């Protein structure tokens, strides 16, 4: 377990997770805030950088592993989740983080999300949701609101957006939260809690695109409109209530934990490990693996 295996010493600080690489992001990009929140969360969790594998796909936000001192894998578009599962299954002792944009996670890579959820590997998935394709300079994304005018929707989008929160809740995710860089303390907290959660955990971050995003999607607007789920008295163990609130995605900006299964089901990596332990004694020695084929 990534959380319980945390050593007491040494104590890490946020700066220990910061690499020398300078982010390519535009000044004021929401992703800077997400990066800071991840530094803080990792410091709080206390695993050394070399025991962390941070996987991403393609997009502005997918550059994020490179800005940390962890092992990173900036892979191909939409495929971070399968790669991360391979890493976790190959070495369950690692802390495995996945991050990317809404296009990476819910458009090109959308098919991997349900299957990752139902397998429940002990990994954390952070989506930086800015409702736009930033790296390719401002096209519609799967979470773009209806009516949004972009370079590929000159006359306004006619498509309904994907609702990432409802999407993952519907497929049975056991930990679902949302944050915004407008509330750094809250964001660091939900990321830390997600990392500590034993099993697949999902954090949707409303991460403003300063260059292509609308005014209502900027930090200033977030600050004015965001509501913590705590302040609404939401019971985060109530999955149906979480789904009710999640339906307001795109209309309200709720922050905090939507759902946290108080009885985490067994993780994929734990089940695999158990199977390895059960069957370990039943192997022929590796060099005699062919003996099973002999016709005696």
């Amino acid at each position, binding site marked *: 377990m990534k959380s319980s295996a945390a050593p007491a010493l040494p104590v890490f600080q946020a700066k220990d997770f910061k690499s020398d690489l300078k982010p390519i992001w535009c000044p004021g990009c929401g992703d800077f805030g997400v990066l800071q929140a991840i530094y803080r969360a990792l410091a709080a969790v206390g695993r050394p950088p070399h025991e*962390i594998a941070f996987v991403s796909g393609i997009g502005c936000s997918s550059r994020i592993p*490179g800005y940390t001192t*962890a092992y990173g*894998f900036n892979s*191909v578009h939409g495929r971070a989740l399968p790669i991360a599962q*391979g*890493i976790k299954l190959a070495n369950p002792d690692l802390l495995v983080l996945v991050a990317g944009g809404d296009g990476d996670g819910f458009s090109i890579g959308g098919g991997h999300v349900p299957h990752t959820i139902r397998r429940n590997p002990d990994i954390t998935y952070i989506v930086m949701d800015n409702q736009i394709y930033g790296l390719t300079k401002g096209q519609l994304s799967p979470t773009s609101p209806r009516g949004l005018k972009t370079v590929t929707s000159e006359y306004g989008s006619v498509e309904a957006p994907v609702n990432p929160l409802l999407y993952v809740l519907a497929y049975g995710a056991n930990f679902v939260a949302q944050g915004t860089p407008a509330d750094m303390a809250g964001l660091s907290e939900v990321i830390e809690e997600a990392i500590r959660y034993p099993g697949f955990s999902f954090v949707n971050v409303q991460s403003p695109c300063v260059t292509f995003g609308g005014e209502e999607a900027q930090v200033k607007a977030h600050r004015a409109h965001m509501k913590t789920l705590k302040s609404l008295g939401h019971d985060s163990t109530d999955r149906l209530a979480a789904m009710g609130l999640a339906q307001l995605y795109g209309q309200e900006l709720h922050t905090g934990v939507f759902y946290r299964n108080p009885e985490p089901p067994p993780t994929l990596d734990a089940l695999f490990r158990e199977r390895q332990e059960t069957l370990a004694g039943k192997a022929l020695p590796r060099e005699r693996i062919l003996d099973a084929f002999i016709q005696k």
Partner: protein
Amino acid sequence: MDDLVIGMAGSGGDGIVSAGESLIAAAAYEGYSAMMTKSFGSQVRGGESSCRVRLSTTHVFNPGGILDVAVALNWEDFLKFGAELPVSGATVVIYDSKTGVEPAAIPLAGVAPKEVFAVPIGDLAKQATGTDKAKNTVVLGLIAGWFGIGRQGILRGLEKRFAKKGLALVQANEKAFILGEQFAKEHPLASPRAMDRPMGVPGKKMLVDGNDMCAAAAIFGGCQFFGGYPITPSTEVMQFFTREVWKYGGSALQAEDEIAGIGAALGASFAGKKAMTATSGPGMALKTEMMGLASIAELPLVILDVQRGGPSTGLPTKPEQSDLFMAAFSAHGDVLRPILAPTSVADTFDVTVEAFNIAERYQTPVIILSDQEVAQRKETVDLIDTSRFTIEERRRPTDAELTDYARFRLTEDGVSPISHPGMKGGNYQGAGIEHNEHANPTASGKVHAAMNEKRFRKLAPLRLRRDLFHIEGNKNAKLALVAWGSVAGICREVFTRAKGEGLDVKLLVPWLLYPVADEVYRDFFASVRAGFVVELSHQGQLYRILRMFTDVPAGVVSLARSGANPFQPDEILAQLRNAAVSLQQPDVSVPSEE
């Protein structure tokens, strides 16, 4: 007799394949060399099914051509297999008399076999067991009776197979076998064809198909992770892994799609474990992007492509050798991926272990290009001494190298020490984006050129690996055969027979298809004036690739045709004879332009 080719066909419920399985298991147990291929219609259940079993007292190179024995439980299904079950005038034809066809009127065009037996197969089965389900057991009795093979082994096999279902069923099937055997004894062949005793010792042969062999070899070679998606004809590899790999401390993931399958395998490799995926043509197309990532991120990975007929869905259950271009060239950017091809179930072991070794040594994806026949046929394999294999591991950084670690350091041989998560000081960013020595992203043309050069340079030694080629015959021979994959087995037989009849021929069978070992071919072709590159594809893809990368004499031509049209040794032999005659013609030189 020292060699016998049996072909059988019936409808799905007739148990033809299980009769074949019983026969080959019995033959293997008794020490014969044997090979079995199965063929089905595309129906999931029912429909037509067939199998071929070839037995030899010495060695079987291929499933054989013309049948010595043809068994038809009904003619409609038998005829659907056409060229897969070819009959000649010398074939012994056995069919169920219930079909109502007169022996003189069997529906085989162009032949009038001398020995045709209409046997009440269904009735004998009913007599023995009360139902006609045991038709396949009656067939086994007929074969044992007429060709003298496998009696003990088959009876032993029946006992094993039906033991769980009770003694009564075992005895009923034994009776069905004996009725078949008796029928054969009461109706002897005009020219007896009993098999000689095998050279092998009982109980000393493996019986295995190519897919199981590949998976077992992978685990032997240290593979700790499999990620894949079901696809014919490679699925058995995943089935083996999901059953066995846990016992060796590894994991297997049946992923949601082909991309996730290779993605998980690549992730496992990034995490420091040997990993593989398996697929067929359509899956290879989907995995292409991830293979590119493996190349640029310099991660070891083994990809098995069991080729079937294409393009698209093509012929999912039939062999073809038409994925070579895709394996070599389907990539954006400049990419060199080693490709190895097994030619038999036996050498699938060597090739798979080698694939992992190359992947680990050079930190590269390696493609094993098998085909439906090699992968799904069952073959007797002599015991393999696993101690003669070396298992390689990727080069990890030393403590000194970790003090100023550069994941993609430009070393002399192009191989940079590779760390993995969990290794302190080895932290780096793996990436699909071009990177400098310290793994930081770059758009510099200079760095890109240096990295491309490194990624090609590290694989250059492969072109000198003469041990990945099998060359037989007189060094100065004027005639040549080149064949790969399952077709190599046909050409091995052709080569032996050609030499036997005095043709001056040599044979080259590559395990390494790509990169093209230009010098190996140049040396081989130096004496050659005529020959054939024999392949089961419309284009003749290896021939084309050889023409790209090495000098091929003008007299060496492509002998290629689409999949599911197996080559017959006789036809290739005839081509060689003609080629030999044409070399004896006085040289008619073309007047030069000058």
